[in-house]
């Protein structure tokens, strides 16, 4: 009887295309759009490097200085970030027009020609401006007080502070990952739509299907358990597909995949539990219940920063207990802690809280459904 109900629950979910859309297609589509919108920001291989500039020599000594300056700008692994190439003016313009270089720099007055403005040309322009500013200052000092030139140059060099980034954790701290964690949290909460329908359809006083199943030779608890297991299975598979897809897209989830999969499983549990409790509310039609589910999911998601950045932090300052019990906040926090912390203390706390909440919601729902005295069928 358990597998009979399990099998047909899976069939109804798969054939009910609306549910599949919201739980599978929607998160995948959202992740794709988000990736397309932020793809270049996330793509580490497309950072500032291999920037080619044309250097047009004019009758000054800036040419050598500029060549030296650009060639000396190195990345963290010692690779050259800017590649200057000396050309005559015509060659340089042709190269610019053919996108072979991003800028043409004239050594005479150090002005720069570009075809469009982007972060590469802006960076080259900044370097050029700083060079002009410093060279003007040195010339001025050399003219006014040549004796102090070496002293000032020395102090400027020594006053330069180099900052280096040191990772305190092995995890990925990419801030853009939060958006993808948010998609998972939302997707998990959307599982509530499936359980809402199922819970609605098991109650004899609110649906004809519920009545037919209540008078059958199979116990209600057996049907509920089988259907909850089926929904958990299918939504978990959906989350795994989404995870695979996002990984394929290039989203960096770090290396703690078992914990991530556990988070998705527990996320599905809490999403389904929310649907179960909403589905068991009396005297409301299925349309009203869907409205409640959408409202609750969105409200919890907004409070967890899924839509408006900064709200979660504000809640943390004003009323932190909300973040401790909000399922959406807990799911995103699980992902966040997995990425930031090397230990599992906070992650474990989040997971345990989600499991307790799921069990409580389902228990309350069972009490409500069992206490129903059918007014009229």
């Amino acid at each position, binding site marked *: 009887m358990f597998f009979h109900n399990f099998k047909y629950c899976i069939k109804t979910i798969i054939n009910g295309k609306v549910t599949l859309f919201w739980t599978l297609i929607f998160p995948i589509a959202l992740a794709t759009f988000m990736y397309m919108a932020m793809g270049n920001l996330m793509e580490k291989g497309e950072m500032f490097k291999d920037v080619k500039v044309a250097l047009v020599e004019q009758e000054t000594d800036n040419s050598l200085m500029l060549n030296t300056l650009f060639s000396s700008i190195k990345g963290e692994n010692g690779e050259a970030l800017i590649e200057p190439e000396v050309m005559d003016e015509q060659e340089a313009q042709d190269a610019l027009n053919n996108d072979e270089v991003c800028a043409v720099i004239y050594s005479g007055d150090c002005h720069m020609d570009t075809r469009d403005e982007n972060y590469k040309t802006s960076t080259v322009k900044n370097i050029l401006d700083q060079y002009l500013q410093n060279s003007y200052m040195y010339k001025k000092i050399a003219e006014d007080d040549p004796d102090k030139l070496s002293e000032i140059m020395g102090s400027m060099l020594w006053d330069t502070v180099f900052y280096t980034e040191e990772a305190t954790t092995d995890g990925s701290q990419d801030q853009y990952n939060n958006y993808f964690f948010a998609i998972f949290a939302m997707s998990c909460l959307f599982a509530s739509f499936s359980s809402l329908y199922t819970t609605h359809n098991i109650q004899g006083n609110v649906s004809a299907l519920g*009545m037919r199943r209540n*008078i059958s*030779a199979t116990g209600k608890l057996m049907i509920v358990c089988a259907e909850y297991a089926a929904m958990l299975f299918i939504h978990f598979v959906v989350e795994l597909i989404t995870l695979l897809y996002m990984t394929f897209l290039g989203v960096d989830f770090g290396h703690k995949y078992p914990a991530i999969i556990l988070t998705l499983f527990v996320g599905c549990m809490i999403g389904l539990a929310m649907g179960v409790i909403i589905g068991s509310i009396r005297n409301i039609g299925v349309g009203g219940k869907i409205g409640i589910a959408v409202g609750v999911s969105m409200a919890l998601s907004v409070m967890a920063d899924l839509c408006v950045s900064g709200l979660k932090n504000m809640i943390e300052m004003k009323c932190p207990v909300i973040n401790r019990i909000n399922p959406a906040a807990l799911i995103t926090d699980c992902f966040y802690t997995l990425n930031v912390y090397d230990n599992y203390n906070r992650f474990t706390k989040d997971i345990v809280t989600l499991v307790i909440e799921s069990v409580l919601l389902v228990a309350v729902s069972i009490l409500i459904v069992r206490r129903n*005295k059918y007014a009229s069928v």
Partner: protein
Amino acid sequence: MEYAIEVNNLVKRYKDMLALDHFNMSVKEGEVFGLLGPNGSGKTTTINCILSLLSYDKGDIKVFGKKMTSGSYDLKRDIGVVMQNVAVFDELNVYDNIDYFCGLYIKDKKLRAGYVEEAMEFVDIADYRKFVPKKLSGGLLRRLNIACGIAHKPKLIFFDEPTVAVDPQSRNNILEGIKKLNREGATIVYTSHYMEEVEQLCDRILIMDKGKSVALGTKEELKRMIKNTETITVEIADVTEELLTSIKAVPHVYDVVMRDESVKVYFSGGSHNIIRLMELLKDRDITYGRVYTELPTLNDVFLEITGKELRD
């Protein structure tokens, strides 16, 4: 005498409203039992109490001699229900819907597959096995609803107003199907407020009103309970008081009512009443139009017992 259902002294309250008032009912095994009453008379409440969908305040219900509770799964195995509202999954096709509901009673896959085929043949829906409910016409949907209720071969089947909003052809198919089920040995409890269906199908009929049993018997027994045995309607343009008095003097006439341009004459007993009435009109040289006679219906029974129409 073996009883499929015994309901004794059943009381059910919805807050201040008394839905069932010390209600009694016994259904014999193998019969088609009709539960007739206007909307709100307590028919569905009675069925829901029997099926343990509703708790009741007082009384006792036995099915096949055993007390019926929500946990009586051995008894539920022998019960099938066809509800007024179609209760099927929109996401499953015809075969899967019947298999799912049959599977709530029958574990054995092979046995179940045979039962599902039989149920589809029974309601003549096998050609639509791959169709989802949305693709079925209203009549086919009703047939699917019946198949889902009877596929597990129950010994006791409740039909709760199965023909509401059904076209005449589908209605006849449904009624024929119910007769067939009964011939195959099933006990049928049929509730409706369509008296024609109940008359056509049922061996015994219980008429309910305000949660009480007001009459019980075969349709002939019920009709014998009332004074009226025949009603003759005659279309007459000019009806005088003298004519009405003359008609009232005809043997076995107990009432005469003038309505629009026709006269309704109520008889209690007697035979060849229409001939006597025609002779009277001929003797008095009264011009008349159409004449038709009606035998009493269950509605007349209900009307005489409760003072109101069944479909009020």
